[in-house]
């Protein structure tokens, strides 16, 4: 039987080669490749669902010499999210890049990015993580600059330089760990690690480098221009998946490698930065003049929420309460992935239809593009955290955890962030609805509007009502 973990990396790689070799059929091949990649990714998730965690050693070379691939509940959940979001983005891209040069440039880079993302989620080796992180960064930068406009190239060049600084810092941390423990395998390093100056230095370097790539406040300065100037499907990928990948790495390292040496002070610092990101990001989103800039700043705030989980995870002993927090963290990350991808795709449609995305001049969008406006509203439901969205459950467990561990001050941050989120979502909607006539048709352009709508619907309804499945996937007991 073919190794499903290796397939999840190689199928998109093959698709990238095919769309490069046969540019005449790029759209057809692109859709087929996207469906195939999504299927092999979902197959991994199904197998993790059935058997618990998976591990494979390509070529039969085991650790410490070989480069293993492995999947557990955490990576399987993100892999499934990436597969569905990326599939919707691929369908949208067939409508968005209808003709011209850009279509030929989009697809190969897109499949390379998808391959790097899957490899990153499945890698069980610290150095392989570095390579996949760089591949992800390089393809993301190239895609972000796809329009060739001056602002886009400048913003993404800055993103590239910052990303390289981050990954080089991460690599120095990896080298220190190898020097001290003589292995690069995540599990083996985690088992061998002891408190000491080398381990602490590695923790600081690796977390710091990844925080740059995950745009954790105050290292977020590069994100809004890079995300807001990319073509719509690319913005969706960057915000929903690429930033999440760096955050996933921080989480993976803190859980599996540095679990023994993380101190409450370090976790508290990450929580504090998260709190600052929630408030600053939401405030800037409220003040943003353009819809895509609003979406980019809201990504900052949402990454902030994810960071708030660290001090609570640190303070909660092993057991069902900690499992709930961890699953809630993943649920929030996944919900945001779907919602933000939907929001960026919708923003792209608004921009295409109105010729701009200035929020103050969006009057009548609800009449011209009812389905897209509905998408923005649904994605907004998730960004605010209203029931029945997945992030409602996530925030609920986050606040319960904050009370249970006696860290009530995080609740204030969540409340302020939620209020600001409600304000910035309704600011867009109130503008969109300010013209009278009733729209004739709900859907205007099916191939681009339906994927965006489905993404937002998943984040706002499916993930909330089906949240228990995530607990099962991650191997935890179900919440009462």
């Amino acid at each position, binding site marked *: 039987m073919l190794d499903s973990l290796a397939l999840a990396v190689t199928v998109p790689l093959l698709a990238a080669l095919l769309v490069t070799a046969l540019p005449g059929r790029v759209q057809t091949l692109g859709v087929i490749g996207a469906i195939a990649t999504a299927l092999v990714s979902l197959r991994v998730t199904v197998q993790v669902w059935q058997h618990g965690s998976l591990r494979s050693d390509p070529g039969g070379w085991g650790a410490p*010499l070989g480069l293993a691939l492995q999947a557990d509940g955490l990576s399987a959940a993100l892999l499934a999210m990436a597969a569905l979001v990326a599939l919707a983005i691929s369908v949208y891209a067939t409508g968005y890049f209808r003709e011209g040069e850009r279509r030929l440039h989009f697809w190969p880079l897109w499949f390379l990015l998808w391959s790097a993302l899957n490899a990153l989620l499945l890698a069980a080796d610290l*150095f392989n993580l*570095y*390579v996949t992180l*760089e591949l992800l*960064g*390089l393809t993301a*930068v*190239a895609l972000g*600059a796809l329009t*060739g406009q*001056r602002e886009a*190239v*400048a913003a*993404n*060049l800055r993103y*590239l*330089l910052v990303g*390289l*600084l981050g990954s*080089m*810092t991460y*690599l*120095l941390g990896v*080298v220190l760990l*190898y*020097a001290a423990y003589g292995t*690069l395998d995540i599990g083996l390093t985690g088992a061998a690690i002891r408190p000491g100056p080398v381990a602490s230095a590695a923790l600081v370097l690796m977390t710091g480098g990844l925080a740059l790539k995950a745009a954790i406040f105050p290292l977020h300065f590069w994100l809004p221009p890079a995300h807001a100037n990319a073509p719509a499907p690319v913005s969706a990928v960057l915000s929903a998946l690429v930033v999440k990948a760096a955050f996933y790495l921080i989480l993976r390292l803190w859980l599996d490698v540095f679990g023994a040496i993380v101190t409450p002070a370090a976790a508290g610092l990450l929580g504090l930065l998260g709190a600052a990101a929630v408030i600053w990001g939401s405030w800037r989103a409220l003040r943003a003049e353009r819809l895509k800039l609003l979406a980019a700043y809201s990504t900052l705030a949402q990454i902030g929420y994810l960071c708030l989980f660290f001090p609570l995870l640190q303070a909660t002993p092993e057991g069902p309460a900690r499992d709930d927090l961890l699953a809630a963290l993943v649920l929030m990350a996944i919900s945001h992935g779907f919602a933000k991808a939907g929001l960026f795709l919708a923003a792209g449609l608004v921009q295409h239809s109105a010729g701009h995305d200035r929020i103050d001049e969006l009057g009548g969008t609800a009449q011209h593009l009812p389905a897209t406006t509905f998408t923005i509203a649904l994605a907004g439901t998730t960004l605010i955290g209203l029931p029945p969205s997945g992030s409602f459950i996530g925030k609920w467990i986050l606040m319960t955890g904050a009370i249970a561990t006696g860290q009530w001050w995080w609740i204030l941050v969540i409340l302020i962030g939620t209020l600001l989120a409600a304000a910035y979502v309704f600011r867009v909607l109130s503008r969109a609805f300010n013209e009278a006539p009733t729209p004739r048709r709900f859907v205007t352009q099916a191939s681009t509007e339906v994927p965006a709508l489905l993404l937002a619907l998943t984040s706002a309804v499916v993930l909330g009502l089906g949240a228990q499945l995530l607990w099962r996937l991650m191997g935890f007991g179900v919440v009462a």
Partner: protein
Amino acid sequence: MTAHLLYGGAGILLFVLGVWSFLVHEALLRKVIALNVMGSGVFHLLIAIAERGSLPPDPVPHALVLTGIVVAVSATALALAMGRRLEDEDDAR
């Protein structure tokens, strides 16, 4: 022992110099060079690790350095290509 400390210390010093130069300088070319100096520092440290202890030297860090160089070259090429694109547009105005 002293030799390893010397090589390893030099690697870390190169890394720090690279970070400093990256943060201080505005020009793209200087930033790209600074990143490469940082990378050389990390590779230096890896080579020092490979040579410590018994003979023959540990081959894993050597493989890592080779991979790292490939990554660094591709990243440098992309940065330079994008920088050149910006320069060309400036000239055209």
